[in-house]
């Protein structure tokens, strides 16, 4: 991913860098972060596969494929990072992705003609549909005070059910060919458009989270929502925006999927939510809220993706990937828990 280095640079604190003790403290903090460890694990995996099968693994072609395959999940996971940092969760993303794809495809077909006008209308409709589900999630979480796990479990069913009702359970095909040949499989200077889109979303997400007021409020609410409220932050409005963002990005992932596969893939996204949550948590974001980075999420997305790819190349049963990722996930959360417990002990002192 070309944006990795950019994001790292954006994540650094420019202030007080000249102060040696501050630098050392910052370095020590960085080294103890879960993200650092998972990043090293990712590097280790890449190095391992490269050592074993350099010819097949370490090729531009292979990395291009890995990145293109991961693009949809990465887009969803960026939104999920924001949600989980607020100490929330969004289980509905896979269903919202499918729903948005169905709406977009239906609109494109209804307008017909196969031109860019129809494509643009469909894409806008799909993004609006995704955002709308996000707003529904946010309003129910904040105003009705139903826990996010339940709200998004409910909208998971509602969005998928609605998509099935609209289509009668049969995938919508026949979206304009231009969509597939350009956005779907096209490349710019050797980089697939879908990868560029995912990288742009990631970069904007990383900058927003680490450098803007929106990001600051996201952390503050996840850290202590009551303190945020007392500090004059409109917590409900911000949470609605965060869930809307997650819905919008699920919609965007739906558009990417539609462009790549030229069909709505209704049955293909039932575990996207879990994959995204696993990626976010692997990347060092705390399920308790208040801690996390988009850069970590990028690492968390690529660990499973590269394991899968490497196992296929090695001829290992690819099912091992699921076993390995599950184990790494549990270890990541275990480390997070240990740190929390150490902190709580510190508080009582």
């Amino acid at each position: 991913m070309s944006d990795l280095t950019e994001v790292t640079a954006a994540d650094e604190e420019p202030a007080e860098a000249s102060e040696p003790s501050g630098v050392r403290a910052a370095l020590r903090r960085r080294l103890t972060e879960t993200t650092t460890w998972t990043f090293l694990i990712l590097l280790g995996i890449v190095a391992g596969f490269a050592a074993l099968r350099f010819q097949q693994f370490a090729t531009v072609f292979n990395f291009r494929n890995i990145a293109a395959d991961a693009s949809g999940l990465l887009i969803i996971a960026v939104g999920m990072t924001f949600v989980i940092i607020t100490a929330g969760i969004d289980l509905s993303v896979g269903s919202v992705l499918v729903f948005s794809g169905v709406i977009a495809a239906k609109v494109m077909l209804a307008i017909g003609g196969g031109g860019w006008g129809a494509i643009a209308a469909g894409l806008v409709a799909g993004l609006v549909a995704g955002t709308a589900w996000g707003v529904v999630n946010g309003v129910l979480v904040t105003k009705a005070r139903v826990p996010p796990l339940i709200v998004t479990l409910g909208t998971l069913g509602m969005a998928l059910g609605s998509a099935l009702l609209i289509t009668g359970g049969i995938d919508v095909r026949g979206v304009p060919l231009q969509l597939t040949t350009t956005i779907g499989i096209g490349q710019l200077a050797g980089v697939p458009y879908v990868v560029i889109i995912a990288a742009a979303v990631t970069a904007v997400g990383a900058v927003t989270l680490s450098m803007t007021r929106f990001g600051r409020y996201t952390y503050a609410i996840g850290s202590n929502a009551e303190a945020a409220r007392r500090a004059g932050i409109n917590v409900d409005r911000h949470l609605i925006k965060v869930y809307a963002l997650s819905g919008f990005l699920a919609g965007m992932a739906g558009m990417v999927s539609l462009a790549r596969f030229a069909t709505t893939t209704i049955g293909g996204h039932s575990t996207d939510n879990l994959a995204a949550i696993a990626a976010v948590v692997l990347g060092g974001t705390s399920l308790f809220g208040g801690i996390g980075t988009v850069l970590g999420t990028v690492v968390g997305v690529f660990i499973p993706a590269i394991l899968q790819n490497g196992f296929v190349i090695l001829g290992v049963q690819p099912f091992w990937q699921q076993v390995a990722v599950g184990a790494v996930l549990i270890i990541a959360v275990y480390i997070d828990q240990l740190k929390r417990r150490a902190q709580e002990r510190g508080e009582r002192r």
Partner: protein
Amino acid sequence: MSEPLLEASGITKSFAGVRALRGADFAVHPGEVAALVGDNGAGKSTLVKILSGTLAPDGGEIRFEGRQVAVPNPVAARELGIETVYQDLALAPELDPAANLFLGRELVRPGLLGKLGFLDKAAMRRRTNKAFADLGIGLQDTGAMVANLSGGQRQSVAVSRAATWVSKVVFMDEPTAALGVVQSAHVRDLIRRVRDSGIAVVLISHNMPEVMELADRIEVLRLGVRVARYQAADTTMEQVIAAMTGALGDEEVA
């Protein structure tokens, strides 16, 4: 004595059957330290939260600079110039001290970046370091999250936040409870400095020598009502404690 800056009368508040405030009165004047004392559960923190816009009262009246006002939320309190050190500190533990000091009023970069909401972290860090220096807080690592600070350091962060932003009234709900000897002295100095600049300070404390030392006036809350008020110069610690515990006869109730 001058007009009260902030005056609450007949404030009532119940929590699921518990009557925390049963028509409590309270007043504070500009440029004074008013101590609000009372036993555990007397309703002090509840009253502070109501006057800070964090909690809605069931009944009663709040007057500010002579006008009747509503304080429906913390922003309304802030706009009146009211700041609060809450008993639970109300800090975001995963954020660093600067982020907590500027929580809800972040500085943004100049120009277009600022319009997009880009934070000016360097400026916030600088002003935080200065605020901490004023309070004698020495933090080795100002980038560490608040959760990793000692209890006293955390309390100091909350105190310097309130002191930084206050313009009219600051409520301090047990601001020295977790502080060592040196830090408490710093906070007491700060309270005097704030008062001398014409700001009203409401001090809640169970440390009676501290109250007697700092307060210009003392108001006593017992079981959700004000039972006495004293000029600190004209009273003794024994009298105040008697009023707090109800050992005082009813005839002395103000």
